[in-house]
């Protein structure tokens, strides 16, 4: 019954058109020392991959897609209502006060920037590490990064008191002969996030060119032909073009790699460079980066686990891919948990009274409820991935990904709000609680994210077909080599046997 409902809602529910039925879940997570498992399962070859991925774009969108898109779009509409309200009436529409000058807006900013890091790690770092399994997920993950950075970039623009002057943070020559204050971490953010967005966008787009060309070649309608034709920049697939493409891809991957570590380090400097107790620690850059990767992978899972089901891509985004992602989630989750413990240790070991208080206050003060949500979601939930059965269970991993996202949001909330609410001067202590506009704009950002993602699914190739074909080729070679080896061994056996 649920299957039929899901089938009805599925964005692509006519696999008969693509010639492949709903493929069963193949467990390719087994580890064998003498042979590699197939990354792409099922009887897939270049044609089927192309058909699978392109059909998502080429078929008419189903009710499922429309429902998802319209829902996301209407949530995005909340932004359209509350952001003008905020700009028109003032920051007081939110719940921020003195001493808590930063609330949901900065929490959301850090949350979304963090999420973006997973996509870049998959795209760039895993490329440099020659992890072939990244090819099934890198396109969608990098798209997630772009959209996450867009959502993130909105918040610093609207949270300032005079949003119409927010451009003063950019080093634009002006009649006041004033540059921004380069000592401020917020300016570093401008450069870091700006660079990150630019490089990610270039990398994602450049990587997509061969696939856009595929879509152009298959396009039947003139509008599509022109659109994909323009976007694919005249790609012909010649040897020389592939050569240049591979070189550029490598270069951009190399450029994007340090960004994974630097961007969230710079965002963490917003906190670490200040002197607020609970913020002013050197652990923040690696801690934030680990947390970013942690939450980013969780968001990738949240997006891909349903997507692979609904788009019929279970043999391209296999259990092996998901298991690998879960392993990374566990690793970074352990890093984050370790960082929590180190914060406490250092606060005690360092002996600074106000620092000790800051951490005790986090766990037992007025925001203890937020702290314990954070710990249970971030530290406890991923521990379930020690068990292989759990790592390979779709429902478990989806649930954990949701918990991790919630936990990572609360981590940023705990860091931002508890430290500000109870810092040095006890007479200034106060409590921050969000007003309606805080919550609505936060939801609106999710609406923006999912709207953009829905549009991405609809119009752009969900999977990097050209790279997956490369993996298929490798698979075929190693299979052939393995079978050759087997047959030669069999022949040797029979030869020796007889």
């Amino acid at each position, binding site marked *: 019954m649920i299957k039929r409902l899901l089938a009805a809602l599925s964005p692509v529910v006519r696999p008969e058109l693509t010639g492949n039925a709903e493929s069963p879940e193949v467990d390719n997570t087994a580890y064998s020392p003498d042979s590699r498992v197939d990354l792409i399962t099922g009887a897939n070859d270049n044609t089927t991959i192309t058909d699978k991925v392109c059909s998502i774009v080429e078929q008419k969108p189903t009710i499922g897609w429309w429902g998802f898109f319209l829902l996301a779009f209407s949530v995005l509409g909340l932004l359209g209502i509350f952001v003008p309200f905020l700009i028109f009436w003032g*920051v*007081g529409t939110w719940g921020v006060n003195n001493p808590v000058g930063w609330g949901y807006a900065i929490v959301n900013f850090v949350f979304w920037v963090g999420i973006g890091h997973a996509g870049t790690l998959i795209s760039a770092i895993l490329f440099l590490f020659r992890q072939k399994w990244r090819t099934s997920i890198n396109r969608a993950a990098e798209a997630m990064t772009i959209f996450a950075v867009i959502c993130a970039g909105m918040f610093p623009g609207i949270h300032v008191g005079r949003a119409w002057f927010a451009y003063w943070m950019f080093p634009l020559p002006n009649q006041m002969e004033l540059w921004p204050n380069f000592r401020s971490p*917020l300016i570093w953010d401008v450069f870091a996030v700006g660079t990150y967005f630019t490089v990610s966008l270039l990398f994602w787009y450049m990587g997509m060119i061969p696939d856009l060309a595929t879509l152009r070649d298959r396009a039947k309608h003139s509008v599509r032909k022109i659109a994909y034709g323009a976007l694919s920049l005249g790609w012909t697939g010649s040897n020389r073009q592939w050569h240049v493409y591979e070189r550029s891809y490598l270069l951009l991957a190399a450029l994007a790699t340090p960004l994974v570590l630097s961007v969230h380090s710079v965002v963490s400097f917003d906190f670490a460079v*200040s002197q607020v107790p609970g913020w002013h620690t050197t652990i923040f850059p690696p801690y934030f980066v680990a947390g970013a990767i942690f939450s980013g992978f969780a968001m990738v899972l949240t997006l891909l686990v349903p997507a692979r089901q609904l788009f019929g891509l279970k043999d391209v985004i296999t259990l092996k891919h998901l298991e690998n992602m879960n392993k990374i989630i566990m690793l970074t989750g352990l890093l984050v948990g370790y960082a929590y413990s180190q914060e406490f240790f250092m606060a005690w070991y360092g002996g600074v009274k106000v620092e000790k208080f800051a951490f005790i206050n986090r766990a037992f003060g007025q925001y203890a409820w937020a702290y314990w949500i954070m710990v249970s979601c971030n530290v406890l939930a991923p521990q379930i991935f020690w068990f292989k059965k759990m790592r390979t269970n779709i429902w478990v991993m989806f649930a954990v990904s949701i918990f991790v996202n919630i936990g990572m949001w609360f981590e940023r909330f705990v860091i931002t709000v508890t430290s500000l609410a109870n810092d040095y001067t*006890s007479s200034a202590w106060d409590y921050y609680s969000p007003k309606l506009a805080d919550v609505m704009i936060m939801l609106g950002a999710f609406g923006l994210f999912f709207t953009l993602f829905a549009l991405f699914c609809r119009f752009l190739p969900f999977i990097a077909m050209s790279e997956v074909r490369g993996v298929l080729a490798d698979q075929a070679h190693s299979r052939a080599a393995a079978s050759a080896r087997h047959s030669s061994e069999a022949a040797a056996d029979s030869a020796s046997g007889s």
Partner: protein
Amino acid sequence: MSSIKETQKNSSQGKALWRSLDEFADTDEFRALVEKEFPNHAPELFHSTSRRHFLKVMGASVALAGGLAGCRWPQQQILPHTSRPEGRDPGAPVSYASCWEQQEVAEGVLVTSYDGRPIRVDGNGDHPSHRGSTTAQMQASVLGMYDPGRSSQPSHVTADGHASAEWLGAISALRKAGRSGKVAVLAAPSSSMALSAMRNRLLREVADSSWHEWAPLHRDSERLGTAQLFGRPMRPVADLSAAQVLVCLDADPLMNHPASLQHSSDWAALRTSADDDEPILSRVWSVESTLSVTGGVADVRIPARTADIPRIAAQLAAATGVQLPADVAAAVASAPPSTDDRIEQMAADLKSHQGSCLLMAGDRQPAEVHALVHAMNVALGAVGKTLSYAEVAHGERPAHIDDLQRLADRIGQGEVETLLLIGVNPVYDAPAIGKSWKDLIGQVPLSMHLGLYDDETAGVCQWHLNQTHFLEEWGDGRSWDGTVTLRQPLIAPLYSGRSALEVISAVVDDEAKSGHDIVRGVLQPLAPKDFESSWKKWLHDGFVAGTANTVASAPDVTGGWGPALESAMQTVSGKEIVFLPDHSLFDGRYANNGWLQELPDPITKVAWDNCALISPVLGSELGVKNGDLIDLSVAGANLSMPAFLLPGQNRDSIGVALGYGRLISDRAAGRLSRKPSLYQIADGVGFDTYTLRDADAVRAGYASVSVSRGEGNYPLATTQDHNPVRPEDFMGDLEFNEEQRKIGEFVRVVDTGFNPDASEVKAQVEEAGPHHPDLESPWTEHKYRGQRWAMSIDLNVCTGCSSCVVACQSENNIAVVGKDELAYGREMHWIRIDRYFRGDDVENPEVVHQPLTCNQCENAPCEQVCPVAATVHNEEGLNDMVYNRCIGTRYCSNNCPYKVRRFNYFNNTKNPSATEQMGYNPDVTVRARGVMEKCTYCVQRINRSKIKAHNEKRDLVDGDVMPACAQSCPTHAITFGDLADPKSQVSLTQKSHRAYKMLAELNVKPRTSFLAKLRNPAPREEG
């Protein structure tokens, strides 16, 4: 035809007419002009060859000769203002002396005016009675004048309900009433000699008239008590600078006293003698039910029920063993022996400090306690040293409540045809005498109300007349020591109002006199010859020198009040409710003043509301926390109020502030139908506790109350920790957490004795802070050439009175945000006073106050993190806030460890009324929304002083620059000056052994130092 010349001569207009320039050139007048202008050349010009050439040359003269006047535009003469009358420079401030009065005592003030708009009230430093400081209410009075909620015109109710009226109609009604007689006047008591003269004239000239006085917060007990003791009422003029031991029995001399400014200044002067080479630290004892400002700074405080204080006074008298009249001694002896050894210690202190001690009793104590207190003062040798006595004008007056009774009786007997209410609001703040005041006034055929606001009483009178504010009128008053102080207007009445003097004159005179003439007439006898130059001098100074009337010796002590004292000591057990003046609104008269409503109470830090102050023990018994409603029942009247658990409150006493629950826009008589204006901000704020205060409570100052838990919770807006103590903390072990203990670093208090040792104090002050090594800088630090502005704040003398907060608000155009925003934590005060409780005993903690402004850190954490460089450091060490560059990221506020930065979350100054705009200080920007603001050390005052010094071709000297907070502080706790001058006050105080910097371990290098508080607790017996 006649010649042209003839035609010209015959012209009826009297001006020569000509039809062409040729004609004109030919006239005699023109020739004469040319000859005058060009005496040497005239002949040849007129004999030149061609007329054209001639005219070419003479063209200008023709034009200028005035002969073309016939076609000129009409001439109007304008005069440039090159020689201005003195004091009329546009944009330059001018100060005038005036007089502010409250509770029948005048204070001299100096009012600063820009272009004819008074914008600031400061103290008049020349006034002999008072040292140049102000109270918060004095500072806020300028907003009171510009209050858009003030009544702006007279109104008159007729049979058909029509409302607005003209002053002419009112004046004729007043004169008519004066002629017909049976006029009763209910007025606010005043020390004004002019008003007194008008009163006498009215009583003489208007048949069957009477004059009554009413003030809800009376000082009758002191008058009646001294009358009992000395045979005539005397006013005690205290000199706290000589009182090494001060005992306050339910008294708050530093805040709630007409002479609070003098007391504060004197007490502080003695307190700072703890820094002298032979240091003396006073000891202040306070016995009271609710923490007052004096109780907060007292060295030893005993929380006791107000009802029990007469007994305690008797016990104290017995313990000191002073000589008393026989019946009094008998009454004292009848008091049960005290079980509290603190009373013994109090007595011991008094005995060992004879001649340098002083006792004071509060307004809520009965007259007999005042008599006993003064008997003790005389016996302990205070007179002539710490105390002198002054004559009281109209000393034979009855108590105000008795005066009200008299008026009610007259009304009841139909002896009043016209009731004139001047500056009083009995419908709101007077207890019912038989009937409610609404009904009593309704019984009078003609009732006329003169007041600043169209208030509750105006709502039931037939006429409401808009009164002038003190800044708009002529008047006079006498200060605490009797000095005659003058009041002159700084601006013509904004709404054509009239003063009380003028209204009385309208009753008695056929031609109503102006206040100016009345005051001059009354003061004439003070300078019989050469009045004009004396008058000018008095107006310039603000007072008449040599009119103080204190006497150094006391009249003889008489008895006869012993039995009355004995009966005052009889009390019933049970809970009492005490009616307290509000620290901001006083008796409610300032309820429409936004600055005072938003000012957090010095002790509770609650703003915009009053609440029932209860002990945490009582709170736990009732099961309430802050804001929970409790039901109070006094003699049949009920009121539900939010509770506030206040440490230090006596557990059987409930303190409530008066002055809230106003209804300024109430139109009870259905008079004016206009909707409540948004400017009537007092409406709906707080709870009207006058409803619980009946006539007995007015006499006694307290009443028996029964209290029970009510329903629901009322949100109270506080600016500081919302729960100063959690009920669960004090049952059993009171363990304040780590952070509370850290308070000792911010406000360093050293317990010491009468003669503190400087090096011990210094060691303890350093010990209170965190140990850190000397912080060396990794880079070359900026060398300051020129001034280095700095401030030091002496916590030993800060009383928490909050005058500095309102002074800063007045000087810097700081917006009022309202209760909801304040509850959110968005108040805009640039200076705040942190109030901490210290100690383990929640029923009797110590209170410490710390005023905190921007410390102008040399290594400012805020400057480093602003992304657009909107906050930068200047060459004199000030942290400059550049409003027009700020985009409002609020990172600077996050990084400020003191949290002294304020952000404009909304547009707090949207659409100010026309009068509020007049009241802004033009030297300071009015900030828009989305920008950060903070204390600037009054940079506008620094710059003005520098300009002035530059114009006078001299350097700045210490004391030239005074920020508003420093200027207004009654105890002179705030010192400001130039560190580059090694002899400046601030340089010396920053080097004091008591000096420390707050959060210095963060290496922010603040420019503000604090001086540690010294406390002189009574030694307790061990065990």
